[in-house]
């Protein structure tokens, strides 16, 4: 009979004990793998955020939050910023809310009276040459990926009566590419429909900035992104901006400021997951050591019998090590399976976001001030699990190696 078959039978001899050990072991290995996964995802997210922390400086009317409050910045003053040293480019945009009757919002919310009122539709005006639309909450829409039908703006669309629209807004209003909508008395044609996967992004319409200023009667701009030629020049440019706009007129936020919170929570997540990983791995090690020790104590007579019939210490040690390896491998596989439903929840818990992935809407609508990690558990986790199982079995095999050689069959088989 093969040693594996015999080991399996020995494990099954005490099904309740084996099951209890397996459950506890699987939980600690699962936690260890979850922490490993979260750690990897956090480090990768931190790396990509570090890449984003670059040369962007956002200037918006003081006290404003997107289309809400704060008024506009004077466009002539904004154009002055282009003259600042080390400024590469300026991207202007406006955000406003459209409450007209031509379009119905897919969102309902508070304050709309009985049955839930309709929320305003967010409208933005952007430079047609901007590939990425930066939302008021810091999120972004990558137009090259998000546009599902039709097209995005081209430089020639400047001041044309055209717009792109979120698919949520288009769907509820039964609109498609080529349709025209009367907005504030102007017939604006839909040239593209995009999908961000987020409710906020998909309840929006976007026009070229000059069109939006004309249609919504907005003087000036509500947001300016100034791009510095180098990260080291950001502080100097901020000082220059402050000479044009004082603190009562404009808020100035650098990319570093925007990502500070995320950076902090991700760093916390990395640190916590590292500690969690080590602790749960140590716990798993202690569990397996304890269970092997218990197993040896309970089966000391069996060790004596095996020795009496001629089994060497190596033979007996191998038997116990295979049993331990079997338990570890099964525990590790169960632990790895636990990682799939656990990892995202643990990551959210660690970064303090309830459902970061949903809020961020995946890759097309990411970044900004929402500190979430999209944790994808890869099948590689099973390889890590196998590694952990083998490591645990190796650690645990120290006990049989030490214990078996000390067992004298005459002593353990005496007195029955």
């Amino acid at each position, binding site marked *: *009979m093969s040693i594996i078959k*015999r080991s399996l*039978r*020995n494990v099954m*001899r005490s099904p309740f004990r084996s099951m209890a050990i397996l459950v506890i072991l699987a939980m600690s290995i699962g936690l260890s793998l979850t922490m490993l996964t979260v750690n990897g995802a956090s480090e990768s997210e931190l790396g990509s955020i570090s890449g984003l922390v670059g040369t962007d400086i956002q200037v918006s009317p003081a006290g404003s939050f997107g289309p809400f409050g704060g008024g506009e910045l004077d466009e002539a003053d904004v154009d002055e910023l282009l003259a600042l040293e080390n400024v590469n480019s300026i991207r202007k945009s406006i955000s406003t809310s459209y409450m007209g009757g031509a379009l119905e919002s897919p969102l309902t919310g508070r304050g709309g009276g009985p049955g839930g009122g309709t929320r305003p539709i967010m409208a933005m005006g952007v430079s047609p040459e901007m590939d990425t639309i930066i939302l008021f909450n810091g999120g972004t829409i990558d137009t090259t990926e998000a546009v599902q039908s039709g097209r995005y703006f081209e430089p020639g669309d400047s001041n044309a009566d055209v717009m792109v629209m979120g698919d949520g807004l288009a769907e509820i209003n039964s609109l498609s590419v080529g349709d025209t909508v009367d907005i504030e008395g102007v017939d604006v044609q839909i040239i593209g429909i995009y999908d961000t996967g987020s409710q906020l992004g998909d309840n929006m319409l976007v026009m070229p900035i000059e069109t939006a200023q004309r249609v919504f009667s907005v003087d000036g701009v509500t947001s300016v992104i100034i791009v510095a030629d180098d990260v080291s020049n950001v502080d100097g440019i901020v000082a220059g901006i402050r000479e044009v706009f004082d603190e009562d007129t404009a808020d100035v936020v650098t990319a570093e400021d925007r990502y500070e919170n995320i950076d902090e929570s991700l760093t916390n997540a990395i640190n916590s997951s590292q500690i969690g990983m080590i602790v749960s791995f140590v716990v798993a090690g202690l569990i397996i050591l304890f269970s092997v020790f218990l197993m040896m104590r309970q089966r000391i*007579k*069996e060790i*004596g*019998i*095996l*020795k*009496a*019939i*001629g*089994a*060497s*210490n*190596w*033979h007996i040690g191998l038997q116990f090590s295979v049993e331990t390896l079997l338990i570890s491998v099964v525990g590790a596989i169960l632990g790895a399976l636990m990682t799939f439903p656990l990892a995202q929840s643990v990551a959210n818990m660690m970064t303090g976001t309830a459902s970061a992935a949903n809020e961020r809407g995946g890759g097309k609508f990411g970044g900004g001030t929402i500190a979430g990690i999209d944790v994808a558990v890869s099948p590689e986790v099973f390889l890590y699990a196998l590694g952990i199982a083998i490591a645990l079995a190796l650690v645990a095999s120290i006990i049989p190696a030490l214990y078996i050689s000390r067992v*004298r*069959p*005459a*002593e353990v*088989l*005496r007195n*029955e």
Partner: protein
Amino acid sequence: MSNSNGSIVIAKNLYKQYKQGDSVVSAVDNLSVEIPKGKLIVLMGHSGSGKTTFLNLMGALDKPTSGNIIVDGVNLSQVSGRQESKYRLSKVGFVFQSYYLVPGLKAIENVTLPMELSGLNHGDRQVKAREILNRVGIKDLKQSRRPLQLSGGEQQRVAIARALANAPPIILADEPTGNLDFKTGKLIVKILQSLAARDNKTVIIATHDTSIAKIADLVLQMEDGKLVIN
């Protein structure tokens, strides 16, 4: 391999001492004896007389404190580790009062286990184990039962079969009938007796049952670790 005069066990000035609190107890006390090959030997004595300890020393389950014990040409005072395991695997077969079968294994697996340890292939192990089990009266379905599904007498027969697995020249039996009723005990003794008579094995039985002594070729009487009658 026995020595020239046909002794398979030669013990000279053998001591085995244990510490009991502050005092030292001699379980085997200056024992010198030669045991002939191919005979049924009975070690008689009361509890604590040292017969089990002497049996354990012959089986290399224990180490002598001093003195020499040579079994089938192997000086057990000088072997340890792997050699000791090899000795137990090939030279002796143990039969215990409490049978001591491996509980998780079937009867036949208990018998094939020593063969597996000595490297015999699976097919040969099965054939040989069935043959031995049949000989001791464990047949057909009972060979596939686990120890707890067998009666005491049946378990002891499986234990004898296991002791015979690697065809050792010596069988050491410690109170083999101690847990059995009279009738079953007689059957077990008969099997052990036939091993000496038919197979030329040296069977050494430690017991305080005088009825077994009557069929022995040689009776060794022990008292306080010493041999009193040879």
